[in-house]
């Protein structure tokens, strides 16, 4: 990376926004197509009712909620990782922070759709928002779903600001570099930021504070989502381990997705110079660590079920491992606990294709892991006369895929409009590196 001059950095980054290859259009096109598919499936659900899903009594939550939890999970690592790297003053942050934050924002924006899609009367979803009304009736603040509403809206707002804040210097820079319609856009968005020493002082003071706000928020949000389940009294849900378990799972899946996105960007925009094996190595280690945590959590769950000795709970876990969904369960174990072990070897960590394969496994694995614990519990709760089963329908899975398309669509549009790497930050760290190699440059 040392050969990149400051100007080079700027040039390369701007390049990612300038040239639009057919590959980009293909990607965007397919993303939009997926969105269309999802939208159609949802319109059917709206016209006919949720009967088009595989849901039934007792399994009232299925693929849609799974997708919601999954995307919330993915969202987490982005902001979290970026903030943590910031506090550890890691030189790696400059290259990957931006896209990680963007990933966060867009995954939440995706996740946020699913509760609305999932409820029986989507057109009344605003009943859960706090607004003055003639009914004198607001929402129930004892309900974890209400907590969700607040947690997620706060988190998405703060994440957006975090992303935006970090982008201010770049916007200012771009506003002076680019021509055409973008120029006024960036000028307005940059809020007049122009890099005077005074602004830099304020910026460098404000940013840490913000990062400090983001981290606990990120942790809280997934804890809250976990409480959607932990606060019930259902066997297999009602458990104190859920909050940390969800946060860990969130970071786990988030990192996997981050790896995939970065690999994509690196390939697509020839950013090999900036997104280096060192980054992937770091992420791989993190992935491995999280995988170990998850494995531990799985083990804990089963142990607790056995240790607590509640009939219903033991049954849930017995069935999870041996019942209808046993193949899914063991598949999940394979992808989330076994596969990542390979990352102990640096040769695997530094072998991008291998890392990507594992990340894909983990991403898919985490979706099914959410699916498992949601479905197995309600399909197998206290009253055996009510035990049931659940298989998603095609339309249902289309809606889930639609979400994937929605996320990629937003992300692709973003990298077209905004720098996917922090320019000014890269320059700064680049300069720091140069200073380190030529000590006489910066004298006492």
């Amino acid at each position, binding site marked *: 990376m040392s050969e990149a001059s400051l100007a080079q950095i700027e040039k390369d980054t701007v390049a990612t926004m300038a040239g639009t290859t057919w590959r980009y259009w293909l990607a965007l096109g397919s993303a939009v197509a997926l969105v269309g598919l999802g939208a159609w499936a949802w319109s059917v659900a709206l016209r006919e009712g949720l009967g088009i899903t595989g849901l039934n009594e007792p399994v009232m939550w299925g693929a849609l909620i799974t997708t919601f939890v999954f995307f919330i999970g993915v969202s987490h690592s982005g902001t979290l990782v970026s903030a943590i790297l910031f506090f550890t003053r890691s030189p790696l942050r400059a290259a990957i922070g931006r896209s990680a934050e963007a990933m966060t924002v867009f995954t939440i924006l995706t996740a946020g759709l699913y509760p609305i899609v999932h409820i029986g009367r989507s057109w009344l979803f605003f009943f859960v928002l706090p607004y003055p009304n003639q009914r004198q009736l607001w929402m129930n603040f004892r309900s974890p779903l209400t907590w969700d509403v607040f947690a997620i809206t706060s*988190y998405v*707002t703060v994440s957006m600001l975090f992303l935006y804040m970090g982008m201010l210097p770049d916007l200012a820079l771009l506003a002076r570099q680019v021509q055409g319609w973008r120029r006024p856009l960036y000028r307005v968005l940059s809020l007049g930021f122009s890099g005077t*020493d005074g602004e830099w002082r304020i*910026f460098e003071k404000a940013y840490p*504070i913000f990062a400090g706000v983001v981290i606990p928020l990120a942790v809280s949000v997934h804890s809250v989502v976990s409480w959607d389940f932990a606060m019930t009294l259902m066997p297999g849900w009602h458990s104190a381990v859920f909050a940390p378990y969800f946060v860990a799972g969130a970071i786990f899946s988030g990192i996997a997705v981050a790896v995939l996105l970065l690999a994509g960007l690196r390939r697509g925009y020839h950013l090999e110079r900036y997104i280096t094996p060192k980054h992937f190595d770091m992420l791989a280690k993190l992935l491995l660590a999280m995988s170990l945590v998850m494995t531990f959590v799985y083990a804990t769950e089963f142990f607790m079920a056995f240790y607590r000795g509640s009939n219903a709970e033991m049954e849930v876990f017995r069935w999870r491992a041996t019942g209808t969904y046993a193949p899914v369960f063991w598949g999940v174990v394979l992808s989330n606990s076994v596969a990542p072990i390979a990352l102990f070897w640096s040769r695997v960590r530094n072998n991008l294709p291998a890392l990507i394969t594992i990340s894909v496994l983990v991403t898919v694995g985490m979706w099914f892991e959410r699916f498992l614990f949601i479905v197995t519990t309600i399909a197998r709760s206290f009253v055996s006369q009510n035990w049931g089963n659940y298989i998603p329908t095609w339309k249902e899975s289309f809606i889930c895929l639609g979400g994937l398309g929605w996320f990629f669509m937003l992300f692709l549009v973003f990298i077209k409009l905004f720098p996917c790497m922090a320019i000014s930050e890269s320059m700064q760290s680049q300069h720091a590196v140069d200073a380190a190699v030529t000590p006489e440059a*910066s004298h006492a």
Partner: protein
Amino acid sequence: MPEELVAVYADPDEALRAVLSLRERGVSNAQVSSPAAFPVVHEVEHTGHSRALGWVALVGGLTGLACAMALQVGTSKSMGLVVGGKPIVAWTAFGVVMFELTMLFAGASNFLALAIFSAVSRRKVARSIRDLVSSERIVVTVPLTGMEPKLRDAARVVLGGALAEVAP
């Protein structure tokens, strides 16, 4: 239009050296505009509200907390329905939203503070000069108005070759 010296450097380190030597010669009011937070920006003496930022965030956070409490207690009492055998005002349950809003308001206020304070602080530098800044142009300005001649000369010498003409 106050008279001032404007020097442009391609390399952050040169800018840094210039600023340092200016200071050696007693010229302490130099200002730097830079595309990134290079060390040089920390070397010019600085007066600003940056210290207030923390307090703003704190106050913001507390406001959020207060709003959350008011909202939850107020709305829960408005109809006063018993659910799950829990009390109408259930603080344990309200804790979550209180936390979320605290964080939200803290973050938001911090961001606003950033925007406003920077706007205030950047007034000292003319837009024409700020527009020069780019990855290869780090601008060092020394306002000359009200400066004794000795220092003016010193400044001229230091900035020497890097001096640029800025159209008023």
